[in-house]
């Protein structure tokens, strides 16, 4: 798991990370491993907007990956916003459609900042959920720009945005990806399904020199999700072994 976390740039001081999830893939393992890595940091806090999976799912994943999310919740170093839970209520739907959830997130960042927390991570899983519930692409791009501005405003803040179904929301994904300093694309293998490979990760890291953005590194890795870990394989590594 440590290999995955470092390969994806989660250990580096990246401010805005996007996870692009194409159709028929699930990048939730990246979010789970990221939460584990961030919780292990000293003086850290996480705000998770979970739309794709329930909080229970992340708790179960945490137990498998070796961290206790319930403990972090009780310590108030982990806050979950679950728009899915109260979706039946009309007010919740309205708050999803408006920017209210962003204001909530901002308030919580301020609280953590005031309490002297050094590393704050805002994880949004995933943005396409808001699209499904009536938010326009322009509205979501504007919120992403605001979140990006917040990373400049607060030193210890990093934002991780997951965009699901990027095949359908290409325009949204392109615009949000333009804000990132690290983008991870989760794709299926074009050649089909294999018993030892579930898909591939394309990790693109961006650097900024004097206001000019250029690609720092770009690498492709294959992954296989096991019961308690995620195995990374370099393309071409697998073959016939006797």
């Amino acid at each position, binding site marked *: 798991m440590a290999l995955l976390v470092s390969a994806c740039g989660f250990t580096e001081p990246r401010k805005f990370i996007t996870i692009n999830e194409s159709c028929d893939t699930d990048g939730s393992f990246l979010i789970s491993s990221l939460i584990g890595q961030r919780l292990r940091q000293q003086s850290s806090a996480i705000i998770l907007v979970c739309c794709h999976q329930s909080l229970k799912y992340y708790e179960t994943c945490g137990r498998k990956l070796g961290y206790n999310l319930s403990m972090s919740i009780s310590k108030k170093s982990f806050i979950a916003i679950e728009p899915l839970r109260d979706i039946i209520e009309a007010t919740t739907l309205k708050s999803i459609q408006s920017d209210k959830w962003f204001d909530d997130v901002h308030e919580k960042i301020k609280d953590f900042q005031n309490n002297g927390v050094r590393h704050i991570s805002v994880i949004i899983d995933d943005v396409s959920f808001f699209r499904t519930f009536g938010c326009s692409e*322009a509205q979501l*791009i*504007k919120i992403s720009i605001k979140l990006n501005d917040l990373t400049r405003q607060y030193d210890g803040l990093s934002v991780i945005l997951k965009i699901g179904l990027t095949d359908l929301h290409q*325009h949204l994904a392109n615009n949000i990806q*333009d804000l990132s300093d690290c983008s991870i694309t989760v794709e299926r293998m074009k050649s089909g399904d294999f018993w030892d490979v579930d898909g591939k990760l394309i990790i693109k890291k961006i650097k900024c020199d004097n*206001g*000019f953005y*250029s690609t720092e590194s770009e690498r492709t890795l294959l992954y296989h999700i096991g019961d308690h870990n995620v195995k990374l394989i370099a393309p071409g590594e697998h073959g016939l072994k006797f």
Partner: protein
Amino acid sequence: MISTQIIGNYKFVLFVDDVGIERNSVKILDNILREANLLYEINDGSVTVLKQTNVILEAISRLELEYNEKDIFTNIQKLKLNENVSQIFAWISSNNVHSKILIPFLEHMSELIVTIKSNNQLSILSKSKSGNVKLKEYHHELMNNKTMIKEIKIEKVQEQKEDVNVDNIGTFKIGQFTAEELEAKRNLKLPFEKINSINQEKKEAKIIYTPDNVDDFDEEDDPDNDLQFI
């Protein structure tokens, strides 16, 4: 230098980005203006346009978030008609704009279009007031934060017409004979010539019939004379 091609007579200069480097648009435009010794300042609010002002618009994809297409086109047109504005620079990225009408319409409005086609190639299409349109292709290094461009000259391949010796093409001789061959050719009579020569000798046509032994001839003139046909 890209600035030598862009800065000057063209009022509305449009950058069409097919690669996805919109993030660097400000930096690239900054480099171009610096090359041409043009100073600029960034204003978020309302701006009073003084004499001979160059206007750099925010990336069109960002303007699209706030305004509809009509407003964007109208405001650009207003700037074009403003005499105090010397040049307008706009950047549009095909990956980031949602509306399909934006790129073709802005291309129609602009006088100079710089299309960044790939990581190392761009084209500049200029429309002069007289109606002439020029399209040139260049190598660029914008990805390396450099503004140098080098024209790609398309070499015209001219077909060189060589004098072809007909005698060498075929597998048989045409026109070149030895004395013997020429004599033989003259003496040769082709089948139709033979028929003509026979016809000339015997001018009257005649049917020559040689009966076989088994042939039976009737001596009577008309064998059916005895029949009474009405």
